[in-house]
């Protein structure tokens, strides 16, 4: 089973990504849900779409949309209804590494605390999670080993962190084909 980074946000060099240890990577159609009905604006030809929002209602709508493959809860607001929807629809939440790299000190500690609580509830309610880099440049790309180590710091077990970059991305790609 190969490692897959499902959300790289720049034109990455495939040799560089494979050097890091990934077998595959994707740059999804990432869009911000601003108002209800935005999910319908995704072009039907899009293979992989990542919906991101700070609003729980909009994310619940995205979870029910067939065109959306990944959910990005940017504020890591823990809402049991949303997490149950995600688990029922098998739409994984993104756990991005880039926001952790862009801040430090207390803001990073606060973000990690929010992520840890969100992951804890997702694990409890069996909602799928994918660890993604959301890298905007080469320096923000991380190797699978590093992603697993960061996942473990966020409360996942070693196996869960490994699943979040192998099995679950594979499942997402299979569903989007």
């Amino acid at each position, binding site marked *: 089973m190969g490692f897959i980074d499902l959300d790289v946000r720049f034109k990455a060099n495939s040799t560089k990504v494979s050097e890091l240890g990934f077998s595959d990577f994707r740059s999804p159609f990432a869009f911000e849900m601003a108002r209800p009905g935005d999910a319908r604006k995704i072009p039907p030809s899009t293979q992989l779409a990542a919906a991101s929002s700070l609003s729980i209602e909009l994310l619940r709508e995205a979870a029910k949309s067939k065109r959306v493959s990944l959910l990005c809860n940017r504020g890591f607001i823990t809402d049991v209804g949303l997490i149950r929807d995600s688990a029922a629809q098998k739409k994984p939440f993104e756990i991005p590494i880039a926001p952790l790299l862009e801040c430090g000190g207390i803001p*990073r500690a606060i973000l990690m605390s929010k992520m840890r609580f969100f992951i804890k509830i997702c694990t409890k309610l069996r909602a799928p999670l994918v660890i993604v880099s959301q890298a905007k*440049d*080469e*320096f*923000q790309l991380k190797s699978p*080993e*590093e992603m697993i*180590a960061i996942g*473990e710091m966020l409360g996942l077990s070693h196996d869960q962190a490994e699943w979040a970059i192998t099995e679950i991305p594979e499942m997402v790609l299979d569903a989007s084909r």
Partner: protein
Amino acid sequence: MPVVKPTMREKHRYILYKVEAAQPLFEEQVKRASYAAVLSFLGEYGSSLASPKFISYDAKTQMAILRCNHTETQKVKAALALCAAIEGKKVAFRLQKVSGTIAGLNR
């Protein structure tokens, strides 16, 4: 006569990582950044448990070695992975290998 039995000694892990930066860096800069990354991520208490020790940096190959306590290896790996800049310049620490001995890193 050894002071402690071999089974009672602290077990270490050596982490080999590559320092990717736009400009070449000196050993002192890498050393300071590595310690700062561990300290900012784990705090003083966590760092005391991890007991990091910078071993070496080869400017030619850009490979550095950091030693830590074996129980805290994953935490130190995460701390190094989350280091994004040295003196305002973008860098990335790419983990290569973890071993119980320095010789093991070269195998």
